[in-house]
């Protein structure tokens, strides 16, 4: 189980990005974190990943405090971040360097087949489309079989069609080993399609505003009235989270910039 206890973060430049965020996320759960810009979503994710340290509070995974990147926690970024000098296959196998070569090759081959890119094994990342590159990134993060997979707006740079495609694909992959997924997004559709639980955050400083459970069986029909109902609930929560403190434009933009880091 992943336990977030009163996690807070103040950046050295004084931006108070996150305040006392607490949540317990059990193994295999899919949690979407949604909120306006500058509400500390990415900050929270980076703290869980161990890339940044929280200034207050703790992140613990199965009683181990997370202060640095951990073997059981993988992350997928908004951009694929493939290493341009490695072939697609070598990119996927990047996190498996401790394994013997033949085991690694086999795992990579299986992952390639799983994301439907077997024919691209020897291609360079520059030869991939945006959607293909993000699929390679997903495969790279999943191949070491993390218990927790963090996704930081992973599909936001893709076109609507590819995005839907990859959302379904992600669920499919998740079903293989059922890791915990924590997904930061600003796409309500995406949150409702994927998540068991949607955490709505509110900005300045970022904190938990509302928690919405999505009790819908998978696969979910995006056109069903129930789906719409949940979408509306998330949207209203989102609206209320932003309306509470009417933002002045300046503060919003600076806080938003800080989040991109």
């Amino acid at each position, binding site marked *: 189980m992943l336990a977030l206890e009163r996690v807070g973060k103040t950046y050295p430049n004084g931006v108070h990005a996150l305040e006392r965020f607490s949540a317990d996320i059990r193994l295999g759960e899919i949690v979407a974190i949604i909120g306006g810009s500058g509400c500390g979503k990415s900050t929270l994710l980076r703290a869980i*990943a161990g*890339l940044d340290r929280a200034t207050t509070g703790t992140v613990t995974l199965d009683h181990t405090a997370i202060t*640095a*990147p*951990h*073997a059981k926690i*993988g*992350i997928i*970024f908004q*951009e694929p*971040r493939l*290493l*341009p*000098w*490695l072939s697609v296959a070598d990119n996927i196998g*990047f*996190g498996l*360097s401790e394994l013997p070569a033949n085991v690694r090759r086999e795992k990579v081959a299986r992952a390639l087949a799983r994301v439907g890119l077997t*024919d691209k094994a020897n*291609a*360079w*990342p*520059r*030869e991939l489309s945006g959607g293909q590159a993000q699929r390679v990134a997903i495969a790279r993060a999943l191949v070491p079989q993390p218990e927790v997979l963090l996704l930081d707006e992973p599909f936001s740079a893709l076109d609507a069609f590819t995005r839907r495609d990859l959302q379904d694909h992600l669920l499919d992959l998740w079903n293989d080993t059922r890791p915990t997924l924590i997904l930061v997004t600003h796409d309500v559709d995406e949150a409702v399609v994927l998540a068991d639980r949607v955490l709505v955050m509110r900005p300045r400083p970022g904190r938990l505003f509302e928690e919405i459970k999505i009790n819908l069986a998978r696969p979910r029909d995006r056109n069903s009235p129930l789906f719409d109902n949940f979408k509306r609930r998330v949207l209203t929560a989102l609206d209320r989270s932003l309306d509470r403190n009417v933002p002045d434009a300046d503060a919003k933009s600076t806080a938003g910039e800080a989040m991109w880091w």
Partner: protein
Amino acid sequence: MAMTVELPALERTDAMTPRASSARLRRYARPALGLLLPVGLAALWELLVWLGTTGPHGIPQPIWDWLKWVGLPNGRLVPPPTRIFATIMELASSGELSRHISATLTRVAAGFGLGVIAGTILGAVSGYWGLARQLLDPTVQALRAIPSIAWVPLFILWLGIFETSKIALIAVGVFFPVYLGVMGAILSVDRKIVEVGRTFRLSGPAMIRRILLPAVLPAYVVALRVGLGLGWMFVVAAEFMGASEGLGYLLIDGQQLGKPAQIVAAIVIFAILGKTTDWLIEIATAPLLRWQDAFGRQSGAN
């Protein structure tokens, strides 16, 4: 044209039949394209000198006057390409040429090697550790501001007039571009890529080997090529300061004994050697840089 080269295997087979022959032709024609300008200029030069030696018949007076003024008609100060070629052959057959070339090549190789090693190590250190950069970089930058030729008198006093001082001068010339290139490349490695290394918990050495090294490689190759160019520049300066062999010696000797053909011959050989060694670096590193997604690839860098 790189479009045909970069097509993935499946599509390439389709594209092969109609376009292959023209693509292959263009691949071989491309290096030849680079020869067009020097060969054309040489032919023009030859023609002008030849016109000069045949006398003023049939040439308009102003052009003839101009040719005479330039000194082309007898080709004494402006030796035609054939005479330069003859000089080169003469030097080659006496075995002198290989002696001079190997002397110069040895100096460049030794100076380049030392400069690259020092530049790479110091550049890497100050690129990687902020503290080292703060300690080291201002001094190196100040030293860089000194015209390297200014070291010559000191090097002669310290290291003698023989090989050591020459190699030291070349090494100094090579050092700075390599140092700057390596340091700048490390400092500009994409933070996002480094973060990927961090999420996979790479240790320090692994991070250097698997992320930083490949990431700086393209810039490093450029730094090496700039360094090599400066090495060739400084070998002439080094050989001017007193050498009994080497291409620089051929230049000085040609000036003092009034042998312009020998001077131009040495210059031509410099051009050929410089271009060849640069090309060798390019060839040797090309397999390591195939992954690059850059403008240069599309306009035919491969």
